[in-house]
């Protein structure tokens, strides 16, 4: 392939590509009969057409973002009258706050436990559903059922399943001679329980997206592969997976965002008097929960909570960039 030569090595990828810019304009044709409203129409209309999105984004996306940054620079009690400007003091305190770092570790731990098995299992499920079988539509539709179940309902049911004395999991473990496990008071067990909830809910959704992408893979590729003697596994890894890469990137990014912002599942999992802490030792407290704990009950420290929100933003940006770099590298290798 000669396509790569002009782009240079991926690491030095800063070199601008001629083709990446806007397409060349068609030559301007000044027809004598054209009046100024028509010219205005040509110039302004495109912007008007896209304006609704940007106006809404400005109100509900950009403004809260900037305002949150502004709040995070203040000592801002939620119901007090006049907040004090404190500069970066909230961020300084946050970086030294072990409870914050605890929530970061929890979030990343649950993120890994929820994202990796979720996408692998979804890929496997999609591949299975892609085969010829009886009642295919039924199976495909039922894969989506967990996803249309309300998160709160899922969390409440799983909370019962993972209950220490009355739970289904401990009851099953009892047959192997294991003592009752307290899923709430051991950090890693808590991570497993919360990730199980997330995985259960999202595997089917991702599987359907993968399935849709799989059906777009040209059949003749598989035919030629089997003529060349490639088995099912070989076809899967050498044809299906590489052809699915754009979809994979999409799914990875969407589940990254979702799992880094995990809130409802761990909150309802650790229900009790102070569930926002995620357990007595903050076993499953995620960053969003820590943000809520500080911005709202019981601290009502809006400035500190906003600082947590911005740290979460930075974390998501970092991980999104890492994701982008990794997936780009994989895609590059896949082509060679």
């Amino acid at each position, binding site marked *: 392939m000669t*396509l790569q030569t002009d782009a240079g090595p991926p690491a030095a990828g800063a070199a601008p590509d001629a083709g990446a810019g806007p397409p060349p304009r068609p030559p301007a044709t000044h027809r004598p009969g054209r009046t100024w409203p028509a010219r205005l129409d040509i110039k302004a209309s495109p912007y008007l057409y896209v304006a609704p999105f940007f106006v809404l984004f400005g109100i509900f996306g950009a403004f809260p973002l900037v305002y949150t940054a502004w709040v995070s620079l203040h000592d801002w009690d939620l119901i007090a009258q006049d907040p004090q400007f404190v500069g970066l003091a909230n961020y300084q305190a946050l970086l030294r706050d072990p409870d914050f770092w605890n929530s970061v570790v929890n979030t990343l731990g649950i993120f890994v436990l929820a994202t990796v098995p979720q996408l692998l299992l979804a890929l496997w499920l999609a591949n299975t559903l892609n085969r010829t079988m009886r009642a295919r539509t039924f199976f495909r539709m039922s894969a989506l059922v967990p996803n249309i179940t309300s998160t709160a309902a899922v969390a409440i049911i799983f909370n019962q399943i993972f209950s220490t004395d009355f739970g289904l999991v401990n009851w099953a473990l009892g047959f192997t001679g294991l003592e009752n496990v307290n899923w709430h008071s051991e950090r890693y067990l808590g991570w497993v329980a919360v990730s199980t909830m997330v995985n259960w809910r999202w595997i089917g959704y991702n599987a359907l997206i993968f399935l849709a992408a799989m059906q777009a893979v040209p059949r003749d590729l598989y035919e030629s592969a089997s003529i060349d003697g490639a088995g099912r596994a070989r076809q899967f890894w050498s044809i299906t997976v590489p052809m699915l890469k754009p979809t994979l990137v999409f799914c990875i990014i969407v589940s990254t965002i979702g799992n880094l912002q995990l809130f409802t599942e761990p909150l309802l999992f650790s229900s009790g008097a102070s569930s926002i802490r995620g357990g007595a030792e903050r076993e499953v407290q995620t960053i969003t929960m820590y943000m809520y704990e500080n911005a709202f009950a019981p601290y009502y420290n809006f400035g500190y909570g906003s600082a947590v929100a911005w740290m979460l933003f930075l974390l998501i940006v970092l991980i999104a960039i890492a994701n982008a770099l990794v997936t780009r590298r994989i895609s590059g290798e896949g082509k060679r």
Partner: protein
Amino acid sequence: MRTSSRRGRVLSAAALAAVTALGMAACGGGDDDAGAAAPGGKVKLIVDTFGEFGYEQLAQDYMAANPNITVEIRGKGMTLDKYSPQLTQQLATGKGAGDVVAIEEGIMIEYKANPKNFVDLNQFGAAELKDNFLPWKWEAGLSADKAQVIGLGTDVGGMAMCYRKDLFSKAGLPTARDEVSALWPTWADYISTGQRFAAGNTGAAFVDSGTGIYNTILLQEAGKATGYTYYDTAEKLVVETNPVVKAAFDQTAQVIGAGLSGKYPQWSPEWTTAFKQAKFATIACPAWMTGVIEGNAGPSAKGKWDIARIPGEGGNWGGSHLAVPTQGKHHKEAYALAKFLTSKDGLIAAFKAKGTLPASAQALDDPAVKEYKNAYFSDAPVGAIFGEGAKALKPVYMGPKNQAIRTEVENAITQIDQGKADAAKGWQNAVANAKKAAAK
């Protein structure tokens, strides 16, 4: 060409992802327009409550007597830890709060620091109502400088020990409430009774969890000795040095150490299930807890529960006030409604409906309360049991971050309960985390 366009797509997807994420993280919600005049020139008043206040019938009565007013009661059954952050947000944004709002005693302290959010009820002559309420309850409704009347008292907790007769008899213990009360004049006696109970091998724990016991002892001891808990009256943090806190903590650790706790965290689903399956025999119960027990244990346990006196002396846990937020449009009408709901008759009606113990000495002395028997609790004379202690109570002062600090100490006790710390380590955690919470 293809590589670079894909790179662009990935990066822009990443950027979009990040932006969407923050947008979602930053969004909050506030909605309805409270206090708007209803059609036909009527004034609509919204009352925000949580749990069970027993106001449904009272609202009907009030509307019948005041045809120009409609009353809506919101928040029935809502938990306190959902209700109070919501109210705080409504106060902060200046929109959405009811015309009359209920404020729980633990949250009241935080609102006292910012009294401008509430109407000073003195301007409508609230001062004349002072003698209707228990003196300490009246005090608790005043602003920090005592110049402003923020809230009128609704109910007080009082304190008793609820127990399951069937489990007691299975363990060979007496079941009549006077005999049970005689078992535990002190908390040390309570522990030794618990050990006798445990020897009976009933398959149930003696008490639900450590935190309920802890809160009871703390407020008892504070009422008896210092008159304050985590903060002294000058608002200095004294969690480490106040002997009352340490004493309550150690006593609770002993209860847990004796293996008497069922380790069911209060308000968790496991706690609810443990009620249903009769997995513990006693629970410290303020008056409002009787409604919770009835709801959790269900109708099949009717007549199996009874109420004895609390070990130690008296004590109070919980109770609320009604306040009028400044943001409402009908202050005068809202005050009249709050006055009606907290009048002697209003308090008695709420008590009969949901067991909330009246915050008024006159109401407590009224035969309707004094002679009231709760059928669910084996016809226990709840009005007399709770009322007696409530009248003798002395106020306990609570400082600005009371709620957050209490949460930290309760979690240290839960750690001991779960076997993740011994009493000494638990106390260290409690003190360290309480200091951190106070500094936030």
